[in-house]
């Protein structure tokens, strides 16, 4: 059977898709502030997430200064250091990456890519953003309460998180828990939208298997989030009660700094199980959208169909399902029943198989392609490298005995920064460059983009590769300072100083990115329609950049998958999803319509 049969009549019935009640803004306020347009909500989400993410970035510099030059920066107190770690980790994972991928990219891309005018519940979608903003404000407020923000580590393990020996164990932790609960409520509202829009609002011809992998990644990640966040919610509510009402859900009989507390019988491990039942899927909530987006970046910029589309979809579904039965690999040395180790090590290494397949298929998409080394493509390659590296170290930590010496060392820090810090950030940058012309109608500055990529990629790899080896050595994570030990050589201090310097350089290099984005918004070259010659629907809108209601008078009809790049017999090397078969321009040569 032919891959495409230009001229053949389509089987798509010509009927119209029912128009939805589209929301129409009546004033400036409802258009740009309390807007129900998913594209505006997406921008709001993105700006808020990036703003709070910058706070986390600055915190990481302060931490790095302390680790690199422990004797120089006596301004940083141990309690502050632990607060910085906690807020940095929590902000990066939840308030930056989760919000940006789902609230930002999800809102912008889902309706456009599936051919819908908007999300299905625009009002709920708007409320989702405002609740998220409230969560962020509560989080920021915790910096200013007496005692400061919580310093319990982003895992918030009780009893420590709510007892006196930990910074922020009075106000800070409560605000943290409240903020998380708000985030979850807000996310659930948005998440309902993303899922139902994908299920129900696809345009005619957009079957599930014709959706771009970006949509698949965000879709599966949203399902994971909807099912996993309740676990964090449960843990947060019960911990709040332990703190405020003195219940003993997680709190055993214990002493706190010389005084008996009244708690009794609670189980700290129950919290850990709840936390990681959320926490592991959370890793994939960040990773799966990145997987999806990077697949599209690679395909478009290598001018080649994504290799093994079906395998890519199945792997997303399989990873999503498996991610609910691996959580206790974070608890191998937590004191839980050690026999669980067998089960969780096995499931964890099994999840590596579909993940590895995705890596193979990305590289196989480059294979036999026609690779344009644009900035998005560079970031996509950067993603593959860092994700490959981070995925491999995940195999170490998943294999239960190997985790025993490595858990809670710097190896863990290096691992998760590679796999869910740097790798998703590579995709975020790549995606922003890729869709910048769609959103603004202008091109970014290519040279600045290249500089930004090289400094960020080389820098990030240089920061995190050596840190693994400190972990092998036995350097613990979450240590204000190493002090004197018999097993850590002098050279480790030199390494730490070096890493700090690189981290600062990488951090400041981000200014290049912001400058590029800001300047190009007014000064950038006007991007023609569909500058990447991409196939998916977001580039095929009547108005460019897409306006209110996304598409013109009628919704597009979809005739094929979004990966028709280099189809034999077609004149151009791409073929948008909505070009009717009888309008496809073929090359006249023999065997033109491909058999």
């Amino acid at each position, binding site marked *: 059977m032919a891959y495409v049969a230009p001229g053949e009549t389509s089987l798509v019935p010509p009927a119209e898709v029912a128009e939805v009640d589209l929301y129409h803004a009546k004033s400036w306020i409802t258009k740009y502030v309390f807007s129900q347009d998913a594209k505006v909500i997406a921008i709001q989400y993105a700006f808020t997430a990036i703003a709070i993410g910058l706070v986390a970035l600055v915190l990481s510099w302060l931490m790095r200064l302390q680790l690199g030059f422990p004797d120089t920066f006596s301004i940083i107190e141990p309690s502050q250091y632990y607060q910085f770690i906690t807020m940095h980790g929590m902000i990066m994972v939840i308030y930056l990456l989760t919000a940006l991928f789902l609230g930002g990219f999800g809102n912008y891309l889902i309706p456009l890519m599936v051919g819908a005018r908007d999300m299905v519940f625009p009002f709920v979608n708007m409320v989702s953003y405002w609740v998220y903003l409230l969560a962020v404000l509560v989080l920021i407020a915790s910096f200013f309460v007496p005692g400061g923000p919580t310093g319990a*580590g982003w895992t918030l393990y009780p009893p*420590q998180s709510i*007892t006196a*020996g*930990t*910074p922020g164990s009075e106000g800070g932790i409560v605000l943290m828990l409240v903020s998380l609960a708000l985030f979850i409520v807000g996310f659930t509202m948005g998440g309902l939208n993303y899922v139902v829009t994908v299920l129900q609002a696809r345009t005619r011809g957009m079957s599930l298997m014709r959706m771009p992998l970006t949509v698949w990644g965000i879709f599966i990640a949203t399902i994971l989030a909807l099912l996993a966040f309740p676990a964090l919610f449960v843990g947060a509510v019960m911990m709040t009660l332990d703190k405020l009402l003195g219940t003993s859900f997680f709190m*055993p*009989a*214990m*002493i706190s700094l010389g005084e*008996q*507390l*009244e708690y*009794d019988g609670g189980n*700290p491990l129950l919290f850990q199980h709840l936390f990681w039942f959320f926490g592991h899927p959370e890793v994939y909530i960040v990773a799966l959208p990145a997987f999806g987006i990077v697949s599209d970046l690679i395909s478009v910029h*290598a*001018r*080649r169909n994504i*290799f*093994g*589309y079906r395998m890519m979809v199945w792997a997303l579904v399989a990873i999503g399902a498996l991610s609910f039965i691996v959580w206790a690999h974070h608890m191998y040395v937590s*004191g839980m029943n050690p026999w669980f*180790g*067998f089960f969780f090590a*096995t499931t964890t*290494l099994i999840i*590596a*198989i579909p993940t*590895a*397949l995705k890596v193979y298929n990305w*590289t196989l998409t480059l*294979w*036999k*392609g026609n*690779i344009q*080394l644009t900035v998005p493509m560079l970031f996509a390659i950067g993603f593959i*490298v860092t994700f*490959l590296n981070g995925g*491999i170290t995940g*195999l*170490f930590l998943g*294999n*239960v*005995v190997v985790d*025993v*010496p490595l858990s*809670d*060392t710097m190896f863990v820090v290096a691992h998760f920064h590679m796999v869910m810090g740097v790798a998703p950030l590579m995709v975020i940058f790549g995606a922003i460059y890729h869709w910048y012309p769609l959103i603004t109608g202008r091109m970014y500055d290519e040279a600045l983009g290249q500089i930004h990529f090289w400094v960020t990629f080389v820098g990030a790899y240089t920061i995190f590769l050596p840190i693994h*080896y400190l972990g*092998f*050595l*036995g350097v*613990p994570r*979450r240590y204000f*300072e190493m*002090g004197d*030990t018999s*097993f850590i*050589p002098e050279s480790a201090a030199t390494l730490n100083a070096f890493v700090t310097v690189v981290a600062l350089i990488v951090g400041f290099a981000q200014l290049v990115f912001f400058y590029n984005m800001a300047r190009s918004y007014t000064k950038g070259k006007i991007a023609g329609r569909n500058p990447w010659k991409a196939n998916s629907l977001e580039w095929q809108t009547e108005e460019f950049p897409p306006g209110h209601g996304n598409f013109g008078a009628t919704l597009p009809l979809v005739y094929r998958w979004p990966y028709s790049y*280099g189809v034999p017999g077609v004149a151009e090397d791409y073929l948008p999803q909505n070009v009717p078969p009888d309008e496809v321009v073929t090359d006249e040569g023999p065997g033109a319509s491909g058999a």
Partner: protein
Amino acid sequence: MVVVYALILVAVGTVAFHIFSPWWSTEIASNWGYIDTTIDITFWVTGVVFIAVMLFMAYCVWRYRYKAGRRAAYEPENTKMELWLTGLTTVGVIVMLTPGLFVWNDFVTVPEGAAEFEVMGQQWQWSYRFPGKDGVLGTTDVRKISDENPFGLNPDDPNGKDDVLVEGDELHLPLDQPVKVLLRSIDVLHDFYVPEFRAKMDLVPGQVTYFWFTPIRTGTFDILCFELCGVGHHTMRGKVVIEEESAYKAWLEKQPTFAKSMAKAGTGGGDGLKLVSSGGEAVTAGGESAR
């Protein structure tokens, strides 16, 4: 071309760093050499994959770099190749996981004849307890902890009378004797780790956790807390001295027993510390406690 060189450089550089970096595991001092072996196996398997993927990518970027007018091959999938890759990956996973699970089985199965002793963690120091002449550790209760009875031993339990209590931060253990480490915390989570031993486990208030190992080399090693436990986490250190049996015995002799330390303090075991409700008001310790 820069990208091609960069990819090759990252691949080669990573391997070179691995080989030449001065930072690597400490010299092992316990029986857990198999853990190191499993790490080595994992390095070999994953290292091969890492290099293969990196070089393949470098090749693709070079061979299929953009040329105007060239067409990518249109090849939606290749089931056979994907099945092969799945199969090979599965083999790799099995090669890593199987030894891992065998070693884990050792790890969770404490050998007969392992000597028991207890590590007690509190913010931010370590203490230790040995079973004494009768070979049995006495029962404990957090509610019984007081200035006189810092371990919270149950004064009515005869097994506890001869328990040897070590409050300094130095722990001694005999060479070549398998030990089962019982871990107890009286406040928050901690984690007992000596990098040279390779084995660690969390201390969880309200329960007793354990792991086992056999010291195989004499020397003095650092004990560090490996689970965030508050502002003093990084100061929660100790030392463990591995020495010949005789030296160890001599050290143990010098440590006080529970009976002796109680006699010195001159009380029968104390009423516990002041009980503070989470609201802040003081309540008397006593009957209502559930255990």
